[in-house]
């Protein structure tokens, strides 16, 4: 099929169409949804990691003036459960037992949040505490007990080995082993979660406002769990203040809000406060990897063996188990951009009495990068080789593409060596070592860390919990302007701009003449939402295909009106003309007018109107982006505080739709990587209490923690529509590994290596202290 003649918008640094309303306080976020008569919910949450519920007394709470209802499981008897896949589901409100601190137990519906919280304090729940299951390795061995009596603690197990692994591993001249771990972390969107529900006065259907990345998913889940016909539910996402995977799940609170609105026949809203968000938003990471590596004298890595473990928490979030994602998908890319022929792994995902583990940007990627780069750095240090040289020797060569890695994943063509060499050049690697040496003499410890990454994006199979395709419907209105509707759920990525860029190119109209709708299940065709770096490739692919179909329709009508062949019609700059005869032209708005208002001028047999719906599934199951991050850090060995001082990124995500937006994604991911590497840690104490329930305990990077980042792009097109690859997660996949490597490099005189993230000052001081003693 024919692409647009001259793409004008694709690749352009277009300023976002979303900005105007956001900058001028006109945007409407979840808590800005205010409807007359609206009630608010406060939840009573479990104070115990594990306990039986002996009794619940709601009578005092129910008497507080302004309280409309106090709900327990009996008032909302629904389960969030992927039945048939997992043996355990989560009740919307606790049913007989609580399984983690923060689990919703009772919902108080009141005139406002202040009153709801007053009454929530008066709900009396008597608990009989049980011994919590908190340690991953113990849990695998069913100690101290099963979290759920009806299910083994290990809810997912897998083993894999390349043929000939044992021989190859045994025969290698050198072996190293290490245990790597990533702490629990979480997305912390600046806008907390929230949901509102009300009966639509015009139709009697339910309107659900949800701060989500996946509106159709929420509709499907509510319909399934609550046995409501899907057609009776309309899910609308207002402006969403960040998602990062965390808002891709359907939560118990969503079900409770809908039930409250249904039973009270009033609009009801719940907005998470920050403490609730740290307790009950899905957590991420929480991995342990027992790794062994085999390599030869030249630094060539021959085999990796890994036992991957992840603590899935008390329940499996719908639709995505973070633990299964963190492990099974990490295992697929453990060899990263390196040509490592042998791999063996064992995966165990366990239940515990902690908050359910779901998605946080990058999911499997950050841990895989951390391990793969950690392995390379250890091999280099063991052999006293330059870590850059070890990377060079192991890197997949251009002539090996499409490359099938040891786990069986097929990588797209990429710029593996080129991005790496370019990044080394940008950071001035050659000069760095001399500077590092000189500063060490002065007692200053600088380090450099290299992270070459592959970014699996745009999953066309449904393992990420979403559907593999995306949809775009385009409707040209009689004015010649276009309404596009997609099933995406953007949370700041700028799809209203980028999708419009793609569509405008295809049909030859101005950017501002394409309005992109999303986040409304009534207007958008069924789609997978935004997550897993799928929107640009799969959503963009749908936009391109739909654009082309509309273009063909326009060309047919134009050809008829201009008395030419459709293949000779050029559509550009708001006009259609006959190729080579620009004076034989029509304004696109005149074609649109004919298609709707003067239909007798339409070609015979052609349906009235200009409307198409396209669905797009990429040709590859996963589209791989790649690139290289290099971080420079300075570590104060007296205080243990590490600071990222310089940072470069070379990124290859195929054809760029909008370089500025791509750069914004990179910068945000690097900042989150600074958090992942040195600041962010959810901590449970020995009773299973989460001790990090404020933003003074869970430390997000501030403007002063993040370095200025220098960026460059390489464009190796994918085989997908437009040559696009996904890129929303790569920067957070690569950056923790780069920073960890840099800290290890800075502490090399002390034998320092980083085996856990985040690296805290006490970890640094312990490394320095061990070396001294």
């Amino acid at each position, binding site marked *: 099929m024919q692409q647009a003649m001259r793409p004008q918008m694709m690749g352009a640094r277009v300023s976002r169409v979303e900005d105007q309303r956001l900058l001028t306080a006109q945007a409407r976020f979840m808590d800005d949804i205010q409807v007359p008569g609206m009630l608010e919910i406060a939840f009573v949450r479990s104070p115990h990691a594990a306990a039986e519920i002996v009794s619940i007394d709601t009578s005092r709470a129910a008497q507080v003036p302004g309280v409309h209802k106090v709900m327990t499981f009996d008032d909302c008897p629904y389960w969030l459960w992927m039945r048939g896949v997992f043996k355990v589901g989560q009740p919307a409100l606790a049913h007989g037992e609580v399984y983690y601190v923060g689990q919703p137990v009772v919902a108080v519906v009141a005139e406002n*949040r*202040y009153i709801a*919280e*007053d009454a929530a*304090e008066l709900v009396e729940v008597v608990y009989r505490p049980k011994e919590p299951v908190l340690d991953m390795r113990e849990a695998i061995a069913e100690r101290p007990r099963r979290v759920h009596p009806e299910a083994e603690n290990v809810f997912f197990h897998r083993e894999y080995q390349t043929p000939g692994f044992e021989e190859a591993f045994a025969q290698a001249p050198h072996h190293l082993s290490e245990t790597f771990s990533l702490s629990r972390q979480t997305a912390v969107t600046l806008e907390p979660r929230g949901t509102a529900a009300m009966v639509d006065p015009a139709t009697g259907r339910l309107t659900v406002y949800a701060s989500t990345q996946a509106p159709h998913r929420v509709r499907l889940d509510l319909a399934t769990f609550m046995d409501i016909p899907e057609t009776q539910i309309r899910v609308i996402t207002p402006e969403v203040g960040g998602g990062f995977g965390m808002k891709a799940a359907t939560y118990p609170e969503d079900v409770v809000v809908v039930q409250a609105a249904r039973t009270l026949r009033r609009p009801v809203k719940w907005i998470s*406060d*920050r*403490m609730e968000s740290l307790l009950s938003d899905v957590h991420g990471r929480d991995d342990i990897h027992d790794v062994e590596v085999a390599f030869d004298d030249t630094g060539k890595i021959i085999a990796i063996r890994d036992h991957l473990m992840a603590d899935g928490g008390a329940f499996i979030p719908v639709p995505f188990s973070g633990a299964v994602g963190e492990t099974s998908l990490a295992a697929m890319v453990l060899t990263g951009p390196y040509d490592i022929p042998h791999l063996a792994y064992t995966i165990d995902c366990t239940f515990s009495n902690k908050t359910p583990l779901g998605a946080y940007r990058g999911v499997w990627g950050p841990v895989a990068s951390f391990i793969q780069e950690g392995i390379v750095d250890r091999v280099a240090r063991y052999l006293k080789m330059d870590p850059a040289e070890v990377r060079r020797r192991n890197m997949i060569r251009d002539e090996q593409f499409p490359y099938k890695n040891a786990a069986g994943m097929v990588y797209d063509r990429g710029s593996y060596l080129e991005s790496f060499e370019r990044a080394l050049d940008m950071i001035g690697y050659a000069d760095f070592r001399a500077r590092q040496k000189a500063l060490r003499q002065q007692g200053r410890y600088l380090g450099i860390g290299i992270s070459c990454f592959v970014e699996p994006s745009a999953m066309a199979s449904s393992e990420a919990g979403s559907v593999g395709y995306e949809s775009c419907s385009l409707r040209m209105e009689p004015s010649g302007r276009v309404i596009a509707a997609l099933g995406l759920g953007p949370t700041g990525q700028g799809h209203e701009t980028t999708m419009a860029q793609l569509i405008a190119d295809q049909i030859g109209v101005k950017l501002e003449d394409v309005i992109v709708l999303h986040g409304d299940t009534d207007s958008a065709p069924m789609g997978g939402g935004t997550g897993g770096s799928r929107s640009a490739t799969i959503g963009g692919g749908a936009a391109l295909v739909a654009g082309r179909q509309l273009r063909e329709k326009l060309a047919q009508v134009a050809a008829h009106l201009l008395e030419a062949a459709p293949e000779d019609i050029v559509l550009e700059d708001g006009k259609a003309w006959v190729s080579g005869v620009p004076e034989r032209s029509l304004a696109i708005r005149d074609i649109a007018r004919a298609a709707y208002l003067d239909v007798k001028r339409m070609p015979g047999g052609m349906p009235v109107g200009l409307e198409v719906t396209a669905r797009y599934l990429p040709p590859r199951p996963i589209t791989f982006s790649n690139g290289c991050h290099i971080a420079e850090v300075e570590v*104060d060995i*007296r*205080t*243990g*505080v590490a600071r990222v001082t310089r940072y470069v990124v070379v990124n290859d995500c195929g054809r760029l739709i909008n370089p500025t937006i791509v750069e914004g994604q990179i910068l945000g991911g690097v900042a989150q990587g600074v958090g992942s590497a040195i*600041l962010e840690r959810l901590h449970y104490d020995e009773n299973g209490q989460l001790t990090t329930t*404020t933003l*003074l305990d869970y*430390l997000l*990077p*501030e403007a*002063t*923690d993040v370095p200025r980042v220098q960026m460059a792009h390489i464009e190796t097109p994918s085989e997908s529509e437009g040559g696009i690859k996904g890129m929303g997660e790569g920067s957070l996949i690569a950056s923790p590994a780069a920073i960890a490597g840099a800290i290890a490099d800075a502490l090399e005189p002390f034998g320092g290596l980083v085996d856990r993230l985040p690296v805290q*000052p*006490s970890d640094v*001081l*312990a490394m320095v*202290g061990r070396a001294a003693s």
Partner: protein
Amino acid sequence: MKPAPFGWIRAHSVAEAVAALREHPEAKVIAGGQSLVPLLNFRLSRPSHLVDINPLETSLNQVEWSGSALTLGALVRHQRLAEHPVVRERVPVLSRAASHIGHWAIRVRGTLGGSISHADPAAELPAAMVALNAVLVAQSADGTREIPASEFFQGYYTTALQADELLTAVRIPAPEGRWGFAEVARRLGDFALAGAFVQRGSRVAVTWFGVAGAPVRVELTEVPADAREREVAWRQALTTAVGSDLEVAKVAQAVAVAEKAWSEAQ
């Protein structure tokens, strides 16, 4: 996260404020509110009433140099403390320490009296009071009393201030010798992992914060000239004062800030 209900009392004079505190034993004073309001939002603090002393701003925000002492009103806000030319000239280490408190928006509201009364063990100003040998002026319905800073801070969030007393001012004698200040925190504006004021004059004293329930001041008779030996001296001073069961990292950080403050007091 919404506060439990409380009554609101606007104080138009110190006398009114302390009368209200006497009348309502469960009342609390609100000044800048930067520490108190989060506690209210968490419902960790549940006063019956808040006594708002912000209307007293004009009478409790004095910055006065008498020739031998600096008197500061309890409602002097951190940002003003950091920027005030008189403080900068007479007690520069205090303005430097104030500039390290929280973030801009916090410093704009937070007050000297509030920080001292709240007595967070990792806060800068309580330690500054101890380091600078300040006298804290407290008023109640019974009258006024002066409490030396060295006796004021009694442990985690615990002070010598009675429930019906209001801290109205502090008096800082002209500091003797050269002074240094340093702190280490995970991020800019965070409470310190450890911080120190060091006085180098006819005597040498270090005052740490963030290492115990209250600021810790130690006088050193001898400070070695050699950096490595000095490090040992700081370590000894610290363990003498707070015992030896501090975390290893905490000790290292306390030594590091003492040394940094020392070298800044050149």
